[in-house]
C-alpha cells in the first residue's frame, strides 16, 4: 500500500523520523527505502568501532551522498580499537564528503595542525567543534581561520596546546563568526578573547569557561591594559544574544567585565562562579537588555565591602530584573558554599518574591537557596505561567508549602531533590490537584516510592542523588561540556 507512494512523499515521512535506530530499520525494509533513506541521511556520528577508518569513510560517503554533519568521537578509545581517524583520514573525508557543513572532532589524539590545514578543502564548512584535540596548536587554527571562508561557529574545548590568538584576530577581521565557545583551554585567558576586536560585532553566542577555580589572588595583568584608557575595549557586541561566562575573576575596567555593560540584545545569560560582579553591573545589564528571557546565576560567597563574606549580588539585582526585564521566563538561582548562619546569601526571600510576582516565569530552578521557605511557595502558587519547578536541597520547605504549590494554575513538571522537609502527604497534595506531566524526586528522605508511583505521566524516583552529584562536579571541576558532547 504505502509502497505505491511517490519518492517525494516517502521522503516527507522519513524526514519525520529522528531516531537513528528507526532510520536503520526503515532502510532494511526494501531496496527502494534503502536508497531514499541513503539520499536523505545528512548526519552521522562515528566512534571507536570505525575500522579501518579510511575504507569506512569512503563507503559511508557513497552510501550517504548528502552528508552535511559528521562527528568523530573517540572518547574511551584504546589501542586495541584500531587506528583512529588521523590526518590521512581527514584527507579521504575531504575527497568524498562534498556537502560537509558541520564537523565535530572529539578526543582525536592523532589529528594535528597539518590535519586542520586540510579543512579548507571543505568549501561549505560553517561549523567546527574541536573537543580534546591534544596536538592542535594556534598555527593549525590560523590555517582554519584563513582557509574556511564561511566559518560561522567555532567550539574549542580542552584544546590545551592552543596559546597565542592570532587566529582569533584573523577571525575578528573577517567578521564571519556568529558563535564562539572557548571551554577549559588551559592557555587561553580572558584577555585573549578581546582580540576578536571587530569580530564581536556579528557574534550572537559567546561562551567562555576558564580552567580550574577562579583565582583568589587574581593578577589583572592584561597586556593591553593602560590605566583609564579603554581603547582595547571599544568593540561593539550589539547582536550578542547568548552569553555564558564561567569561573572568571573580573575587575572593573579590564578584561571581559566590559561585556556586562556593552550588551544590549541579550536573551540568555549564564554567569557561573564569577567573582567581582556587583549589583551595579547587573542593574546596568537589566536596564540595557529588556529582551532578556533566561538568566542563570551560580553564586559563591566572596569578600564584599565592609569585610562581609557573602554572595555579592543583593535584592538590588533582583529588583532591577523585576522592573526592567518583562520577558524573563526562565530563572535559575544556585548557591555554592552558603549556609543559613554564615556565609550568607545576598538575596532575601522578599527580593525573590518580587521577581516571581513581576516576571512571566515559566521555568524556575532554585538550588540550595536557604532563604526560601513556605512563604516563597505561597508566592509561587500565584505565578500564573509557572510550568516547571525544580527545587534542590531547599530544606525549609514543608508540606504547608506544597499545599500552596497545589494551587499553582499551570504547573506541569516538578522536580524535588534532597528536600527533606517534605513528606508523602505534601507530594500527594500537589499530584491530586495538578495533573503533572512529570514528577522527579531524588533522595528526599521522607518521600516514598509509593507516593510518586503513577502520580504523573512520567515519574522518576531514586534514593540516590545522581543529578546533584553531577551538579557538584560541575561546580568543582566545570566538566559540563565533556558530558554534553560525549
Amino acid at each position, binding site marked *: *500500500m*504505502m*509502497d*505505491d*507512494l511517490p519518492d517525494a*512523499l516517502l521522503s*516527507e*515521512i*522519513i*524526514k*519525520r*523520523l529522528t*531516531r*537513528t*535506530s*528507526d*532510520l*536503520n*530499520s*526503515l*532502510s*532494511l*525494509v*526494501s*531496496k527502494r*527505502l*534503502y536508497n531514499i533513506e541513503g539520499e536523505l541521511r545528512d548526519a*552521522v*556520528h*562515528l*566512534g571507536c*568501532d*570505525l575500522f579501518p577508518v579510511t575504507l*569506512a569513510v569512503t*563507503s*559511508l560517503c557513497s*552510501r550517504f551522498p548528502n552528508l552535511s554533519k559528521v562527528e568523530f568521537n573517540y572518547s574511551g578509545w584504546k589501542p586495541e580499537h584500531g587506528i583512529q581517524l588521523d590526518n590521512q583520514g581527514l584527507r579521504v573525508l575531504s575527497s568524498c564528503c562534498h556537502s560537509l557543513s558541520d564537523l565535530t572532532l572529539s578526543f582525536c589524539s592523532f589529528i594535528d595542525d597539518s590535519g586542520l590545514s586540510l579543512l579548507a578543502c571543505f568549501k561549505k564548512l560553517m561549523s567546527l567543534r574541536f573537543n580534546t584535540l591534544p596536538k592542535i596548536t594556534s598555527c593549525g587554527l590560523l590555517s582554519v581561520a584563513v582557509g574556511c571562508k564561511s566559518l560561522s561557529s567555532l567550539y574549542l574545548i580542552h584544546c590545551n596546546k592552543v596559546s597565542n590568538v592570532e587566529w582569533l584576530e584573523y577571525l575578528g577581521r573577517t567578521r564571519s563568526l556568529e558563535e564562539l565557545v572557548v571551554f577549559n583551554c588551559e592557555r587561553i585567558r580572558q584577555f585573549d578573547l578581546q582580540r576578536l576586536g571587530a569580530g564581536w560585532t556579528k557574534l550572537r553566542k559567546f561562551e567562555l569557561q576558564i580552567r580550574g577555580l577562579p583565582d583568589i589572588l587574581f593578577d589583572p595583568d592584561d597586556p593591553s591594559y593602560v590605566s583609564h584608557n579603554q581603547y582595547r575595549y571599544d568593540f561593539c557586541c550589539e547582536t550578542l544574544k547568548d552569553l555564558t561566562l564561567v569561573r572568571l575573576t573580573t575587575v572593573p575596567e579590564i578584561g571581559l567585565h566590559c561585556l556586562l555593560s556593552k550588551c544590549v540584545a541579550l536573551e540568555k545569560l549564564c554567569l557561573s562562579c564569577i567573582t567581582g560582579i556587583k549589583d551595579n553591573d547587573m542593574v546596568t545589564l537589566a536596564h540595557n537588555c529588556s529582551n532578556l528571557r533566561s538568566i542563570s546565576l551560580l553564586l559563591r560567597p566572596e569578600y564584599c565591602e565592609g569585610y562581609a563574606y557573602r554572595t555579592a549580588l543583593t535584592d538590588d539585582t533582583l529588583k532591577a530584573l523585576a522592573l526592567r526585564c518583562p520577558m524573563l521566563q526562565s530563572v535559575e538561582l544556585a548557591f555554592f558554599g552558603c549556609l543559613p548562619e554564615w556565609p550568607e546569601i545576598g538575596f532575601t526571600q522578599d527580593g525573590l518574591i518580587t521577581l516571581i510576582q513581576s516576571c512571566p516565569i515559566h521555568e524556575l530552578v532554585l538550588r540550595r537557596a536557604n532563604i526560601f521557605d513556605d512563604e516563597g511557595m505561597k508566592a509561587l502558587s500565584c505565578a500564573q505561567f509557572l510550568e516547571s519547578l525544580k527545587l534542590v536541597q531547599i530544606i525549609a520547605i514543608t508540606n504547608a508549602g506544597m499545599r500552596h504549590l497545589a494551587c499553582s494554575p499551570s504547573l506541569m513538571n516538578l522536580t524535588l531533590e534532597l528536600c527533606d522537609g517534605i513528606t508523602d502527604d505534601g507530594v500527594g497534595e500537589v499530584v491530586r490537584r495538578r495533573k503533572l506531566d512529570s514528577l522527579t524526586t531524588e533522595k528526599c528522605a521522607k518521600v516514598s516510592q509509593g507516593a510518586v508511583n503513577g502520580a504523573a505521566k512520567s515519574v522518576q524516583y531514586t534514593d540516590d542523588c545522581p543529578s546533584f552529584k553531577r551538579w557538584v562536579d560541575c561546580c568543582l571541576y566545570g566538566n559540563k561540556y565533556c558530558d554534553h558532547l560525549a
Partner: protein
Amino acid sequence: MAAPESGDGNNGAARMVTLISSDNTRFEVEAAAASLSQTLQLTILDGGGGGGDGIPLPNVDSATLSKVLEYCIKHAPAAANGGAPNATAVDRAELERFDNEFVNIDQSVLYSLIMAAHNLEIEGLQSLVAKKVADMIKGKSPMEIRRTLGFPDPTPEEQAEMNAHMLEYGWAYE
C-alpha cells in the same frame, strides 16, 4: 439578479464555493476553508468555484474529499487568525485532540489522504499524515514495518546487499 455569494464576504454571509470530486459528487464549502489548499486558493481568488460552475478535482474521490473538507473546516478559523498568536491553550488542545482522532483511520483511507493532501497542497494536512505514518514506523523492526505498511519482501539478493552493509558498518548507525 447577481448571485450574492460572488461578493467577497463583507455582506454578512460567507462566500461559498463548490468542489466536484472525481466521481461527480458536489461539495459546497466556505471559500475560507477550501483556501487552505494552495492549489484551490488561486482559483478561488480569481473568483472561480462560485455559482453553478464548481471546481472539478479529478484526482480526489468523494469519500476522500469529504474527509479532507472535514479537516479544512476545523482548521480554517485558526488559519484565518494567522495560526497560533492569539489562540488560547484550550483552542490548541482542542485542535490537537481533533487531529489525533482524525488520523486514527484505516490505512487505505490514510493513503488516499496523503495523496489528496499532496495534490491539493494543504500544508497542515500533509505534515499531519506524514507524522502519522512516521509514528507507525517508530520502534518497529524491518519485518514489522513491512507488515504494517504493506511493503513487499525484498528479493534474496536485495536482502543480502542490505545486510552486508549493516553488518560491516553497523556502528555508523548508533
